[in-house]
């Protein structure tokens, strides 16, 4: 069979451009702000125009060539390969451009505006935890003790939040490492409880968390919410503020959807921080799969070479891979390796919801970002009222993955963190 190299490249480019267009239109339709090519929030009109233009351009360009009209050229199988690779490349390019433009936006937004004084906290690096402490410790009950999320971006969010707090209020922000957060969420840590950890951090930072306002950020909010009673016993907090906790759907797992506002780079960073290659279950699966792969790939390659099939050295191992994955799935299921699909998160999150909706001696205020709000309302609207001491706020214009986006985001955060009840409310 003749190969039409030039057409292969052109067909690949056609699918790449057309798929980019389709992804942009669908991202606008779904409100996937994380895939916004120009960073920030998706403007539907812009995305529809951009996507449709790419789609129309790809058709006009490809079919304007007489070689692509009623002439024998690229064959069906190669077209399928081009379709698959073109879509894959378009997804990768979208991910890359969206991540880079969002990183640029964050960097530009991070610079303090003229006349604005940034509070520069000192950082203490302890084992399994980083503590940021702002200079000065205010009146009892006015200071903030915050628990944030692990990682570089968790620290950046914490620093931005600290800069919103007036200098007469003290702030101590505890950022547990991923492993520490996981073990604290699982309620079993070799170093002690959350209360012990916070007390130790306070001692090292030279501040007393007793009777202060406690603030949880994201997964840190889940941790504080699940340990409310422990905190009451240990510190008698004035209030508990929970900003964008990860909300549970008791039946399906988590309510939040990372595709809505996290960029692909954010998602990748989260996954890498979790170090999935260290996961025992995944390693057992890999150990079960690899011998099967060898067992399938060797005869498959021998067969493709013997039968003189095209790209025999590629198609053979590929066939072996597909068959070995198929076999490995059933082998793993027989051995019970797939019995528990769920990670620890959904269970933890479900526990969070039960605790939030139950009675408490601690005044709590919960702000939910708009990525979660729609699903949250649909599920829990009937149980919305009568939460006792817990007040919920749905922040319609705030995205979990782009928390400081929008002009009023900082104002809203200031209101939420203020000692009095001055936050604007959207429901």
């Amino acid at each position, binding site marked *: 069979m003749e190969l039409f190299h030039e057409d292969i490249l052109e067909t690949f480019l056609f699918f790449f451009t*057309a798929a980019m267009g389709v*992804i942009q239109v669908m991202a606008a339709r779904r409100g996937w702000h994380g895939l916004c090519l120009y960073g920030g929030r998706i403007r539907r009109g812009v995305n529809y125009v951009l996507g449709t233009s790419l789609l129309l351009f790809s058709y006009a360009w490809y079919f304007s060539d007489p070689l692509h009209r009623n002439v024998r050229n690229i064959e*069906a199988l190669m077209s399928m390969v081009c379709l698959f690779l073109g879509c894959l490349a378009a997804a990768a390019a979208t991910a890359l451009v969206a991540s880079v433009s969002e990183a640029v936006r964050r960097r530009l937004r991070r610079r303090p505006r003229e006349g604005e004084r940034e509070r520069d906290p000192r950082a203490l690096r302890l084992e399994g935890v980083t503590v940021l402490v702002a200079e000065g410790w205010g009146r009892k009950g006015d200071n903030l003790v915050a628990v944030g999320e692990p990682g570089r971006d968790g620290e950046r969010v914490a620093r931005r939040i600290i800069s919103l707090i007036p200098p007469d209020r003290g702030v101590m922000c505890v950022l547990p490492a991923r492993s520490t957060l996981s073990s604290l969420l699982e309620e079993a840590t070799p170093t002690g409880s959350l209360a012990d950890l916070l007390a130790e951090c306070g001692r090292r930072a030279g501040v007393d968390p007793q009777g202060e306002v406690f603030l949880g950020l994201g997964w840190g909010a889940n941790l504080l919410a699940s340990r409310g009673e422990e905190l009451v016993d240990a510190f008698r907090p004035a209030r508990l503020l929970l900003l964008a906790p990860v909300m549970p759907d008791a039946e*399906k*797992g988590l309510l*939040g959807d990372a595709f809505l506002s996290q960029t692909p780079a954010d998602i990748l960073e989260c996954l890498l921080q979790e170090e999935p290659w260290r996961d025992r279950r995944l390693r057992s699966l890999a150990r079960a799969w690899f011998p099967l792969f060898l067992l399938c790939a060797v005869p498959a390659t021998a067969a493709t070479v013997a039968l003189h099939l095209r790209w025999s050295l590629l198609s053979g191992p590929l066939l072996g891979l597909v068959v070995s994955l198929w076999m490995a*799935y059933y082998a793993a299921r027989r051995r019970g390796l797939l019995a528990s699909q769920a990670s620890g998160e959904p269970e933890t999150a479900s526990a969070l919801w039960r605790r939030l909706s139950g009675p408490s001696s601690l005044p709590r205020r919960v702000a939910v970002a708009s990525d979660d709000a729609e699903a949250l309302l649909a599920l829990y609207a009937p149980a919305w009222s009568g939460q006792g001491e817990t007040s919920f706020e749905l922040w319609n214009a705030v995205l979990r*993955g782009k928390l400081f986006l929008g002009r009023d985001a900082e104002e809203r955060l200031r209101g939420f963190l203020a000692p009095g009840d001055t936050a604007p409310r959207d429901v």
Partner: protein
Amino acid sequence: MLSWLLKIDYTLFSWINGLAGRNAAVDTLMKVFCNDHLVPYTIGLLVLVMLLRGRDRSGDRANLASVVRLIMALALATVFMQLIIVFVHRPRPFVDHEVNLLFYRPTDWSFPSNPATATFTFFFSAWLSDRRFGWYFLPPALLMSFARVFCGVHYPGDVLGGMAVALAGAYLAHRLQFLSRPFVAMAQAVESRLRSSLSLRE
């Protein structure tokens, strides 16, 4: 029996192919739909739309499963088609008859029609998964199949054969779920993991 069926097939072909050459606009339109690329590529992109069109996470998981089954159906239909080609060698209409040929002369066997098999596999598989969105795959499949007969490169029987092969492939891929289950589970596990990576960002 077979000769009677072939006779009916040729009569139908003559009627449809006889329409060619009467109106330049219709001929051009048929050439457009007969094209090896336009309809299959559009249908390929429609699969991408199908994958991304869900309303929520559960919808996306269902669409992911549909696309995996669709790929499985395409693989099965291709295997069936290759098996048929081993045993059935039917020449193209322009080899044995005087036809109005509006297309280049394909060199492979006529039965079953490759484009009909491919496009109808997309349709049947998509329709079996999603009774609403699946219908979007039917008009291009019908138009392309009709255009292939109109342009003189296939008999109607080839198209019907392709449709039967497509139906068999799609039905089996959906019926024998143990074939696709591992790949559906893997795709859904990856999707679920990616979407659960929630964190606060600036």
